[in-house]
């Protein structure tokens, strides 16, 4: 391998890692907010699929990527509304409803896509990148990290915004109380249902956005089941991050590298069966769970519907 080749290769690898990491990051941040508030959001995979599909449709017909992100987020919110109604208001089992939503959306988006485009997979034009001056000239990491679509920078900024919300705002306190001791929040005069609903809808928006990114920026097209477990990886990230948004970022980047490595190794034609290469990200999940899973601390009331006055 020549030096030039490895530099280009590394840069592409990194670029791919970031692109793959962003949907995981958005899903992880979203899941983290739900879990903080005490709702185990297994439906997040379904929310991402809704976001991917509606995001693609929005961008495809309008020609605007931003409108696509908007419709994607709206799709995620729509699924989250169902989840909030059934699991927060009515208090049904979060795991059952979450799985049902995911399976339902897998089928629904595949079906709608089939009706609309039959067996063709139209592509969106390549995305515009925002080049950050100076930084983008750094070898290897410059082109990888600082020639990305604007939404990538916004997603990274969101990590720090979330950190600020959790540590420094009243809303952050409310979310944590809703997850750790909802009764205490209720008697303090804050509606637990509303707090949890806000959290679930935010999850929907972020997951939908993540799905739209996956389809519109990552792939440039929509295919059924395009999320391929990204939502579930988000759940793992949220569990391992112990309530800290930066850890979601680190985790997402790590998985992103694995995913990107998978593609890169296939492209480079390295002589390992593709099935094994494709296992890489999931192997990483298992290793992470074995290493850090025991220390994952989950909110005390996670998964338990709140009912006022019940004991």
């Amino acid at each position, binding site marked *: 391998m020549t030096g030039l080749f490895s530099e280009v290769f590394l840069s592409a690898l990194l670029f791919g890692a970031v692109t793959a990491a962003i949907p995981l990051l958005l899903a992880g941040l979203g899941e983290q907010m739900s879990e903080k508030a005490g709702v185990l959001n297994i439906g997040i995979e379904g929310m991402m699929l809704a976001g991917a599909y509606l995001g693609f449709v929005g961008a495809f017909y309008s020609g605007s990527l931003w409108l696509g992100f908007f419709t994607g987020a709206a799709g995620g919110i729509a699924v989250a509304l169902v989840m909030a109604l059934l699991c927060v208001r009515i208090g049904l089992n979060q795991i059952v409803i979450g799985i049902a939503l995911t399976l339902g959306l897998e089928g629904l988006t595949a079906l709608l896509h089939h009706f609309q485009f039959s067996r063709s997979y139209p592509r969106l034009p390549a995305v515009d990148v925002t080049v950050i001056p100076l930084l983008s000239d750094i070898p290897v990491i410059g082109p990888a990290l600082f020639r990305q679509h604007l939404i990538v920078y916004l997603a990274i900024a969101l990590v720090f915004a979330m950190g600020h919300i959790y540590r420094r705002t009243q809303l952050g306190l409310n979310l944590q109380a809703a997850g750790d001791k909802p009764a205490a929040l209720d*008697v303090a005069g*804050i509606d637990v249902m509303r707090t949890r609903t806000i959290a679930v809808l935010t999850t929907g928006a972020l997951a939908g956005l993540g799905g739209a990114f996956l389809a519109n920026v990552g792939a440039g097209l929509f295919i059924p089941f395009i999320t391929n477990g990204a939502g579930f990886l988000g759940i793992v990230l949220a569990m391992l991050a112990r309530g800290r948004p930066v850890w979601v970022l680190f985790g997402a980047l790590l998985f992103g590298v694995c995913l990107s490595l998978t593609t890169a190794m296939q492209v480079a034609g390295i002589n390992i069966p593709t099935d094994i290469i494709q296992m890489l990200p999931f192997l990483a999940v298992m290793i992470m769970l074995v290493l850090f899973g025991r220390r994952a601390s989950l909110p005390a009331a996670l998964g338990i519907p709140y009912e*006022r006055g019940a*004991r």
Partner: protein
Amino acid sequence: MSIASSLSVDKRDIVALEGVTKRFPGVVANDGVDLAIRPGEVHVLLGENGAGKSTLIGMLSGLQQPDEGRILVDGEPTAITSPRHALALGIGTVFQHMMLVPTLTVAENLLLGGPWWQRPKTEELEARVAEITRTLGITVRLHAKVSELSLGEQQQVEILRAMVRNTRLLILDESTSMLTPKGIEELGALMRRLVGQGLAIVFITHKLKEAAAFGDRISVLKLGRKVGEIPPERFRALGEQAIISEIVELMFGKRKDDPEAAERPVRVIHAEAAPLLQVHDLAVAPTDEAPCLSSISFDIRPGEIFGIAGIDGNGQKQLAEALAGQRATMGGSVRLEGAPIEALSVGERRERGLRYLTDDRLGEGTVGTFPVSINFFLKQVGAAPFWRKGVEQRAEIDKRAAQIVREYDVRTPSLKTPVARLSGGNIQKVLLARELAEGAKVVIFNKPTYGLDLANTLASRQRIRDTAARGLAVLLISTDLEELLSMCDRIAVISNGSLVGTVENADDARTKVGRLMIGLAA
């Protein structure tokens, strides 16, 4: 009796209840209750465990709605629809069960409830807390995590929280149960100051002396019904003893003079008998908020009740947990029947006969959502005859559970009722039954009677005495000095994580223990 007079709306009432009824599946928790709450009065609510006191409070604080009857606020019929509504009406409640978020700091807990878009106003809070704690005479570590505080300290935080908000009606549901005698006295003085400023207070307690000392008006509940009231005029006319005997009559239908003063039977403990529990030089590392335990040594012989007195938060819980195996030790030895057990796990210690009754009944003692029957056998899950080859033996469990329920007089609608639905006293009976089951040799009781009504307190104490009489060694940790004096053979005083002295429970024990507790030599 003024039941009739309180029916007519009195303009002076901040809150009045008229014929309030609340039913739960299987029980009528409140049955046509009338209650008048006035500014400038401490209204004491008395009643046995399960009488329906907390349920009444739940309706006043917006957690529950009455099935029948109405609540008047300032003379207007008002449906208190949510806790937020109750707070807006000026009703502040300190609930019987902790209502603090364990993972947040004290300050964050006090700030909970502000508008969500705002930054928490920490500086403002600090100033306000400083002012209130000065008048209250308590110290609160604002930046400590709640999970690191003792239950007594948590209770102080909750009282403080009610004070931080501008409350017109302050409800205290068993808020003295975890306080020291001095703390209770201070709370009493504070209540008197507050009603002097025109506040109304509803005060729930099981201690008749507190009721007589701090109250203006007393209402007694029994099985959900209000069975009597002593209005202020009569209250003032009677002396403490007369009030107490009147209450006892209302509650139990018979006059008893001082029901808590039980004569301590003289027990003969064979000094030469080998100690069942020997603790030598036990040490436990400090945590952020609890002191370290250092060089704790004592022996308990068969049939002996060994008491640990001291102000709450001086390491009592750490000691109990270290002995039970729930907390790592830094050194020292613990011997059960002469055999070292300090390296054994919680389960192995239990197996050998060491039992621990925690003071955190709902948190670590029981699984609230599990039925009463399963809670009896929680520590035997998987073992025969209740489980066979991993399969739960329903019939076997229910048969034995029904027997225990009868024996320990657990008041529960059914064996299937989740344990958290029971009243505080009945949860304690479930724990007692479980820990005293087969094979117990040494039993550690941590505040066994806190939150229990008089009848249950007396019954629990009798159980502890019986336990010792069967030849078991008993370690009794309590902040209630009267309780220790009425039961123990020897009393040690714990202060800042070490035992500062051990006293034989003879005639002068009260003064000796008292002196040790305030830091003087006995």
